[in-house]
């Protein structure tokens, strides 16, 4: 029977369509009808309770009053300009990257941004509102500056330049902020010294997560390659490292890095006979170390899965072309292996981002710790639900953005298409 011989279906009014759809999908049998009714009642009740809490019961002043704590913890207020400089740099590079790699369909991100506007006005005032606006303007300026490049012959060069800018910018930001105060005693010439225990909130969470991801990823790749090595010493070391770390909970590793090194290094100590007074082991550095060591073992196993998925023929083809071992690895095996494991890698990165909240056991004031500190302030005692909901929203926004970015990366690399 061909389509032409069939009579055109009658155009039904929308309520009839809806009715038929409901009968077919929701009320197809007595059992399903009961299930539908019960589910609808339960969902409405939950939605009603949630809405009642958010709009009536909750007292959101705790968030408004503690904005500074949620974003930067006890960071000295006079030194906020450092964070703003960092944010503007990140905004510029993000705008550039979005144009160079991002999806061309802007409807969804713009709708999301529009939905955030009320939150942004509610959350900020004064200088913070102005500076956040200039951040967004910087993002837009960088985006439009890179507008013509996406489809020009300069695209690849612009992309590699942007990657280098990210790397250099990251190091420029991290070396003085993260490492400097931890390793050198005394005051820092040009800028005053911000002890790392005064870092906190979302800022600290992001520092831990970005450093953790940026360092543990290459480390994990090296471990995976080492595990596949033909040199027994390297292989045994890598296997032992991976299996030992994976067998221990992250909390234990954080405790270890804190207590054991603490006991080893007193407030007055000497290295190679040179006395170091005022030496102080940085807690943030310990936490980073713990997170990196832990995450690298997991990344190594993910990457190993990718390495094993690359057919043997690829290596042999590379060797037949006269490539050396390193070239086969970096030009043929690794690109395919990493592309294959992007989803698992991003899961591990998201998991690392959320695991940073465990540093509260080292008494660091990360985002979760602020949500425990704020409801203890006289005047806000007991308003923990508001604080936790707020940070849950922040965690979700970041984790969701990471997940979307990875999907875009997969599309750009054509995963599953070739």
């Amino acid at each position: 029977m061909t389509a032409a011989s069939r009579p055109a279906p009658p155009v039904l009014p929308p309520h009839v369509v809806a009715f038929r759809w409901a009968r077919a999908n929701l009320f197809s049998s007595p059992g399903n009808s009961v299930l539908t009714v019960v589910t609808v009642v339960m969902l409405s009740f939950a939605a009603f309770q949630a809405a009642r809490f958010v709009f009536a019961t909750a007292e959101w002043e705790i968030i408004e009053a503690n904005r500074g704590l949620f974003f930067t913890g006890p960071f000295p207020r006079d030194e906020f300009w450092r964070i703003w400089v960092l944010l503007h740099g990140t905004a510029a590079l993000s705008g550039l990257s979005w144009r160079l790699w991002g999806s061309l369909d802007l409807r969804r991100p713009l709708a999301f941004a529009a939905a955030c506007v009320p939150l942004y006005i509610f959350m900020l005032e004064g200088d913070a509102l102005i500076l956040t606006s200039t951040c967004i303007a910087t993002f837009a300026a960088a985006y439009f500056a890179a507008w013509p490049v996406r489809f020009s012959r300069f695209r690849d060069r612009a992309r590699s330049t942007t990657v280098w800018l990210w790397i250099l910018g990251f190091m420029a930001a991290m070396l003085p902020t993260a490492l400097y105060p931890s390793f050198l005693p005394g005051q820092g010439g040009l800028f005053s010294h911000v002890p790392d225990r005064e870092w906190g909130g979302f800022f600290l969470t992001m520092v831990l997560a970005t450093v953790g991801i940026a360092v543990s990823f290459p480390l994990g790749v090296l471990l995976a390659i080492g595990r596949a090595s033909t040199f027994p010493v390297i292989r045994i070391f890598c296997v032992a490292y991976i299996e030992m770390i994976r067998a221990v909970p992250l909390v234990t590793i954080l405790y270890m890095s804190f207590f054991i090194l603490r006991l080893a290094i007193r407030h007055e100590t000497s290295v190679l006979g040179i006395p170091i007074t005022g030496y102080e082991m940085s807690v943030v550095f310990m936490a980073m170390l713990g997170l990196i060591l832990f995450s690298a073992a997991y990344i190594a196993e993910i990457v190993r899965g990718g390495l094993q998925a690359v057919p043997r023929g690829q290596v042999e083809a590379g060797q037949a072309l006269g490539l050396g071992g390193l070239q086969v690895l970096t030009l043929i095996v690794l690109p395919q292996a990493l592309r294959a494991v992007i989803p698992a890698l991003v899961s591990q990165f998201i998991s690392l981002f959320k695991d940073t909240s465990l540093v509260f056991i080292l008494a660091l004031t990360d985002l979760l710790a602020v949500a425990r500190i704020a409801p203890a302030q006289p005047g806000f005692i007991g308003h923990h639900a508001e604080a936790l909901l707020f940070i849950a929203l922040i965690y979700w926004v970041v984790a969701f953005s990471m997940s979307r970015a990875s999907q875009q990366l997969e599309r750009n690399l054509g995963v599953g298409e070739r």
Partner: protein
Amino acid sequence: MTLKRSVAILPLLLVALAVIVFAACGDDDDGDATDSPTPGDGTAAPTDTDAPSGSHSQILQDVIDRGSLNCGVNNAVPGFGNLLPDGSFAGFDIDYCKAVAAAVLGDSEAVDYTPLSASARLTAVQTGQVDVLIRNTTWTTGRDADSGLTFATTTFYDGQGMMVRAADGFTSVDDLAAATICSLEGTTTELNLTDRLPDAELVTYDSNDTLQTAFIEERCDGWTSDKSQLAGRRSEFPADSGGPEALVVLGETFSKEPLGPVTIDNDAQWSDIVNWVVIGTIAAEELGVTSSNVAAMAADPPSVSVARLLGVGFGGEAVTDTGLDVDVTFMQDVIAQVGNYGEIYETNVTPIGIVRAGTLNALWTDGGMIYSPPFK
């Protein structure tokens, strides 16, 4: 080959074993004022830094060289140690950090606060990470002797109490013999309650926040914790659950929790300084010296006791050096910049609803335990 491999793996196995052993030592009951004396706290051996005993204090010298005091604190106990929205610290314990800084450096703001978790705090003192720990720490034998620490004069006498709903009509702890009681898990609170009410059903929670939710939902009849905690919770009990009037803290106290500053054992001079700063604030209250009248009293001391406290001469008598290695006028700085004991209590503890009158924290002249040895 196999032999070589197994030899290579051996040290790694040892490291793994060490990891497991240390993991077993670090248990964290984190959080609230009820910090149980954890056996793990004592595992860290006292350090043998080369501070000479006697008149010269190494820690004092370090603090002066550094120009700031490293103080270990809590940042989430209402009224005692809070991190405020503007990033500053405030509270009863924080004010004692400020008092020590004012005495030693003449500047109550010259303090670097280090928030510490319950399990990390004693190690922090032992390793010299902090000069003094003022973080609602209960004075116990184990901590004083085994952990190599010294406790200064108690600044706050806390104790375990019981809070019930006013509508339930309980008037004493014995009324709750067969009731359901909520408490924080892993704390001495839990043990004390089992001793006091063996037949009561105990429900434990990991934080006061979840505990409060359970209490509002009437999943338990009594809420047991340190009285200072209960009072703080009561004063800010949500209005839609009846507000503070819906709750009663029963009079009975069934544990001792004397809280005070902690220093390391091997620097007696430093411990003396911290101790006498605490005593000085109490003496100031006894003598009626406050932050507003301290300047006038120093210029014209009304009695020889006041003159000795403030380090000034009286009636032509020469100023006697206290031998504490700090400026003889150190209490002037403390009182002017921080206040006397009563003022510190008023500023921090009264606002969270802990009444002072009639408790152990009243002055000894008012029937309490706050008592100053003679300052001379």
